């Protein structure tokens, strides 16, 4: 056993224990660590935001004389009008631009990747039970979601099958979530035992 003599490791260990202590009871150390890390996180976002504005906007504007960049810089500054009641409506312009670009990009990408390619990959030969489950399961889930009229007759069976298939997916999601959360805890405990206390390798 060799306890760490690294200041960074000690601070990280105190932060880890501070947050973990919340499992026992809310306490001042937890509150302090939580606030400090939120502060560091917000400060980091500011730094990265500034670097982007500098490298993408101000830099090319000054160095290359690309005056068109005044448009996004002005739009970006308009975002901050939301803090002034009388002119807060001006912040809608940059928001509208971001929403418009994001929506356009998502629509054009979704059609190919999420719909056409997925449908193409579902068109499988009906020569095995697995393929049948994939085809009718996918159809069943879609019918369960999209047919708003009462599910009767054959439609009912397909949609019930779709519902069962979805339950398997939710089960898989729960199982995977447990796996992920435990991995996160293992990571933190490993840090405490190995990097800080030195009781394991």
């Amino acid at each position: 056993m060799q306890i760490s003599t690294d200041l960074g490791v000690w601070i990280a260990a105190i932060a880890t224990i501070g947050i973990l202590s919340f499992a026992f009871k809310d306490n001042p150390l937890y509150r302090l660590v939580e606030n400090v890390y939120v502060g560091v996180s917000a400060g980091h976002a500011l730094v990265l935001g500034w670097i982007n504005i500098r490298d993408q906007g101000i830099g090319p504007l000054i160095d290359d004389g690309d005056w068109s960049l005044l448009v996004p810089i002005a739009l970006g500054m308009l975002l901050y009008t939301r803090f002034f009641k009388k002119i807060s409506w001006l912040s809608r312009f940059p928001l509208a631009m971001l929403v418009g670009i994001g929506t356009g990009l998502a629509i054009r990408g979704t059609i190919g990747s999420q719909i056409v390619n997925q449908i193409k990959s579902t068109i499988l030969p009906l020569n095995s039970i697995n393929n049948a489950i994939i085809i009718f399961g996918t159809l069943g889930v879609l019918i369960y979601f999209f047919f708003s009229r009462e599910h009767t007759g054959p439609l009912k069976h397909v949609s019930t099958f779709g519902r069962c298939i979805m339950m398997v997916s939710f089960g898989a999601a729960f199982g995977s979530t447990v796996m992920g959360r435990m991995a996160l805890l293992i990571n933190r405990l490993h840090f405490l035992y190995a990097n800080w206390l030195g009781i394991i390798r």
Partner: protein
Amino acid sequence: MRQELPMILAFIVGILMIVSFFFTSETLGEAARTVENWGVIVAAFALGLASINLIQIHAKKITRGKGLDWLYSGALLFSMIGMAVLGIAKGPTHPTYQFWFDALFVPGQATVYAMTGFFIASAAYRAFRIRNLDSAILLVSAAILMLANVPVGEKIWSQFPAMGEWLMNVPNLAGQRGMLIGAGIGGIASGIRVLLGIERTYLGGSGS
């Protein structure tokens, strides 16, 4: 006008993004590239918004808060301003900056996320009940997958990994694909509503 003009802007840039992808036109392509570049810059400005909000909230807490609020809020503002000044002055790869990033931010957030491991265990004990066929399917598939994903599962029964793989790659695949296609169609529909100005909650107003 205060709603219509931003809506028109969203419509124009949104349609430009779509049309420039499907039609090969140098002018359209150039326009789309310019708008994309602008979008990155505007998005960078948005990164500062949270800080202004935090300053507003925590400055108030320092002056009017109860108990130790002044200490917590003071620590938050101090660490935020400290990181921002250090990062902007010295750069984010400066050893001191990376030190505080690794010593405070990484363990802080990683442990907050890790804590959900305790909460999910508690939820598994209290809420994961077999009440009907649906919950039985859900629980059985979760149990198989949890055993299939770890080496001990294979020790218990050698077929668990194969079962887990089948579960993941056949019924789960079908379910996820159905939801993916469904969400894709839904996403496109709501995207069109946004571009046409039918859905305008992002402007701070209500939908039509």
